[in-house]
């Protein structure tokens, strides 16, 4: 594969998954600068390791895995952020201002309960509900077995139900069997 082919393949991957990876990093970072940085780092890694990127829909899962490691590593050196990434961060910050404040709804209780979970639980629930992944796909991103992913997801859901119940959040409002579950958990 010559360089133009490589670039074309990367372009397909980039175009198909940019928005999803942006959403992934944005939702897991406190600052737009960090989001821009992680985004650039993730796709730079993909370009550098293009041969490792799987074909088709699995490319997205591979990219999530890279983004996850990038975020876990955190920022390594201030000097690594370039001018373009700075601009991207500024653009994202402006976008954030445009979307209005978080919490302009009645879900603060859910946010607080979610925030009390361990990072691993948060991540597995987020992958399921924010990225819409199945437990099989979550297993690919986390690099664990399908069974382990299912179990982690199940436990994380129960722990969130427990946190919500402890905070007095009326899960019953959302379904008749809600209370049963929180009792089972206890």
């Amino acid at each position, binding site marked *: 594969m010559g360089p133009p082919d490589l670039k074309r393949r990367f372009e397909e991957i980039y175009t198909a998954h940019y928005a999803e990876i942006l959403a992934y990093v944005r939702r897991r970072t406190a600052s737009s600068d960090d989001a821009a940085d992680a985004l650039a780092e993730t796709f730079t890694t993909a*370009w550098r390791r293009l041969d490792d990127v799987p074909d088709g829909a699995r490319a997205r899962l591979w990219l999530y895995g890279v983004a996850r490691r990038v975020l876990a590593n955190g920022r390594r050196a201030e000097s*690594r952020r370039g001018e373009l990434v700075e601009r991207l961060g500024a*653009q994202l910050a402006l976008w954030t201002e445009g979307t209005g404040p978080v919490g302009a709804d009645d879900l603060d209780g859910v946010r607080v309960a979610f925030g009390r979970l361990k990072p691993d639980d948060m991540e597995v629930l987020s992958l399921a*509900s*924010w990225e819409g992944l199945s437990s099989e796909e979550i297993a690919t991103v986390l690099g664990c077995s399908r069974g382990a992913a299912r179990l982690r997801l199940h436990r994380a859901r129960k722990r969130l139900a427990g946190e919500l119940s402890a905070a007095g959040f009326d899960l019953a409002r959302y379904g008749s069997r809600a209370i049963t579950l929180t009792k089972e958990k206890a």
Partner: protein
Amino acid sequence: MNDVDRIIDRLVADIAPDPGPGMTPLARELFEEITRAAAPAPPRRRWAVMPRRRWIAGPVAAALTTVAAVAVIGVGSAPASAALDIKRDGDHYIITVRDLFANPDVYQAELRARGLDIDLTVLPTSASNARTLIVINGVRPREPGRPVSGDVKTPITTIDEPGPCERFGGCAATLKVPVGYKEKAEIVLGREARPGEEYMMPPGIDAPGEPLHCVHYANMTVAELMPILRERGVEPQFTSYATKRFESTAPGGWYVYDGVMSAAGKARILVNPVPNPKPRPFDAFCKNGS
């Protein structure tokens, strides 16, 4: 998965933070930046040596506009006090730009005189976008890997104009800078363009006050968009990820991704052969949906 699992998943989905603007022209620049490095060798980070370019307002604006260096309009000999109004209010400076056409060096001299390392640039833009004030702070608190929680506070703040604000970047008229602020910052301020002058801070084509405000133009075909533009007296130039240049026509069946006003009555429109799978939410600019 039982009902409670579904409820939990739905609650978690409901608190999902905003996904962001999706693919923007700036994202396209990042693609070019990344692929400039030879694959699969480790990429060199070239951006550090790139010429400094101005960042322009709006998620789309940057790449749809020609981001040129700011022209120096005559060497200013006017007293610095003529350009900026700087008042001290307790531990802050309250700064208002008095002369929008002053030489940038004059602003600089005024700010430097107060020990502020702030670059102030005034750029031509549309009437409705004029006085848009953008602050790019040198520092921001960082907490990598933590979930989003509220706004990130920055040391330089802006004071909005009185009245309701529909503008994407806010409606700031005045800057508030801590006295003794040592970090570098960039401020970009919009002024109304002179007749025929190209906008260097191009507003979104659907921003409040612009020709396509509250028009559902995203993912329209070029053929559908053309009569609307004609009706509103807008002359388009088209570009696409594939062509990367501006042309006066585009295939009628291509889809509209985004657009900015590049001068009065002139627009730059980003189109592509396939529909945008994730267009920007319509209410990003049209809050009331009307």
